[in-house]
C-alpha cells in the first residue's frame, strides 16, 4: 500500500465521518495518529484538488465540492444505474409510487437511484442512503439471491430491531427469504419504518450474479390491498427482469 495515498484516504474518511462538524489539523492528527505536519501537507494537497475545503473563519477543514464530482462519476459509471434509469421512470409512472434502486454494500443496501412518487408532493432524495439489508424489501430481494456464504457472514451478527415488526432472528429471516425466492419478490411491511411498506425484486448481471434490486415504496395502507399488491409486484418483477436482460443476465431469476 502506498502510505501517502492511504493516509490521504483516511483523512477524507475522517472528514466525512465528522460531518457536519469541521475538523482542525490537531483533531485530525489525534484521531488518525499522524504527525501534525503530515496532516497539514496532505490537507494542502487535497485542497489543491478541491477534495477538501478550509472554513474561512475557523480555519478547520471539511470535504470539498470535488468529492461530489467524484461520486457523480461513480454513479454515472455504474452500469446498473445507467440501465435502470428509464425502467425506474416507467415503474414509477405505472405504479404511481416512488421507486428506488439499490446495491448491496456490507450489511446495507445503498440507494443509487431514486424516482419520486409522480404526484405534486414534496419528497426527499434518498440517493446515497444506506438501508438495512434485513429489514427492507430491497435488502431482502438482494439477500435471497446472494451466495449463502455471504448471507451467513451478514447474518452472523446481531440484526437490529427497527420496529416491532423487524425480523431479528436468523430463522425468521431465512423463512422470509425462502418466501422471496418462491414469490420472486420481497415484501416489506413496516419492518424498517412504521407506516412504510415496499415491494422489490432482484437484478442480475451477465454472469448470473446478483447486482442489486429495484422496488417501490409506499405508505402501508396503499399496499394493504392484496390485489393491488400483487399487480404492483408483477410490475416490479417485469422491470427487474428487463434491467437484468439489458445487463446481459441469461435468466431471471438467476438459477442458484
Amino acid at each position, binding site marked *: 500500500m502506498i502510505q501517502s495515498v492511504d493516509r490521504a484516504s483516511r483523512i477524507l474518511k475522517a472528514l466525512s465521518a465528522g*460531518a*457536519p462538524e469541521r475538523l482542525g489539523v490537531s483533531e485530525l492528527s489525534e484521531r488518525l495518529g499522524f504527525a501534525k505536519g503530515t496532516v497539514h501537507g496532505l490537507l494542502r494537497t487535497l485542497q489543491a484538488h478541491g477534495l477538501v475545503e478550509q472554513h474561512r473563519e475557523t480555519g478547520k477543514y471539511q470535504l470539498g465540492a470535488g468529492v461530489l464530482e467524484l461520486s457523480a462519476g461513480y454513479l454515472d459509471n455504474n452500469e446498473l444505474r445507467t440501465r435502470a434509469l428509464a425502467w425506474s421512470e416507467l415503474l414509477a409512472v405505472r405504479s404511481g409510487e416512488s421507486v428506488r434502486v439499490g446495491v448491496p454494500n456490507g450489511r446495507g443496501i445503498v*440507494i443509487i437511484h431514486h424516482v419520486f412518487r409522480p404526484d405534486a*408532493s*414534496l*419528497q*426527499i432524495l*434518498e440517493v446515497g*442512503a*444506506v*438501508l438495512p439489508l434485513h429489514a427492507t424489501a430491497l435488502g431482502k430481494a438482494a439477500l435471497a439471491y446472494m451466495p449463502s456464504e455471504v448471507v451467513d457472514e451478514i447474518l452472523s451478527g446481531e440484526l437490529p*430491531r*427497527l*420496529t*416491532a415488526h*423487524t425480523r431479528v432472528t436468523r430463522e425468521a429471516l431465512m423463512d422470509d427469504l425462502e418466501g422471496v425466492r418462491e414469490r420472486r419478490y420481497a415484501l416489506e411491511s*413496516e419492518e424498517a*419504518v*412504521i*407506516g*412504510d411498506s415496499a415491494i422489490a425484486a432482484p437484478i442480475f448481471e451477465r454472469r448470473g450474479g446478483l447486482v442489486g434490486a429495484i422496488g417501490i415504496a409506499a*405508505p*402501508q*395502507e*396503499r399496499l394493504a390491498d392484496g390485489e393491488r399488491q400483487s399487480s404492483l409486484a408483477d410490475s416490479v418483477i417485469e422491470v427487474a427482469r428487463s434491467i437484468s436482460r439489458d445487463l446481459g443476465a441469461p435468466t431471471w431469476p438467476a438459477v442458484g
Partner: protein
Amino acid sequence: MNSRTVRAWLRLAAVSIQEQRDYLTQLDAAIGDADHGSNMSRGFTALKTWLDTRDDDVAPGPLLMAAGVTLAAAIGGASGALWGTALRGAGAALGEDAEFDGLQLAAALEGALDAVVQLGAAAAGDKTMVDALGPAAQALREQIGNGAGLAAALRATRQAGEDGMKATALMQARKGRASYLGERSIGHQDPGATSTSLIISALEEAVNSGCD
C-alpha cells in the same frame, strides 16, 4: 379529571395541530416526506368530528382507546400507527374508572410511551416522538410523586416535552425514514417530537381550562 377533560384535550390538540400544520410540514420537508403536518391535521380533524358523535357516558379509558382506533383508521403512515397505539396505550392504563387523578394521568402518559416504544422500537436519543413523550411522562410522575399540585405538575410536564422536542435538533435519527439520511438528519428538529409536544401542551391547557 374525567371524560370531559379527555375530550377537551383531544379537541385542543386538534386545534393546535391545525394551527401548526404548515410548520410541521416544513420541519418534515427537511428530513422526511413533508406530509407530517397534513397527516396529523387530517387525523385530529377526523378525531374532533368523531368526538362530536360520542355521548358523555363513556369512561376516559375506553374513550381514549376508541379515539386511538379512530385516529389510526383516519390517517395512514407512521403518525396514524404511532398516535393510534399511543392513545390506546394511555386508555388501557386508565382502565374503566370514570374519574382519574394526577397519578393515573402519569400512568396514562407512561402507557402511551410504552406502546410507542414497543411498536417503534425507539429509545431515548433516536430523534423520535419518544424524545418528547419520555421526558414529559417522567416529569409528570416525578412532580406528582413529590406532591406537586396538578397545575404545577403539568407545567413541568409541558416544559419537559418542549425541552425534549428542542433537543432532537442535535440528534442523528436512528429510527424512521429520517434515519436513512444518517448524519444529514442532524440540525433539524424532529417533526414527530414537535407534534407530540403540541399534544402535551394541549393536555395542560385542557386541565387548566377547568374541564374537570
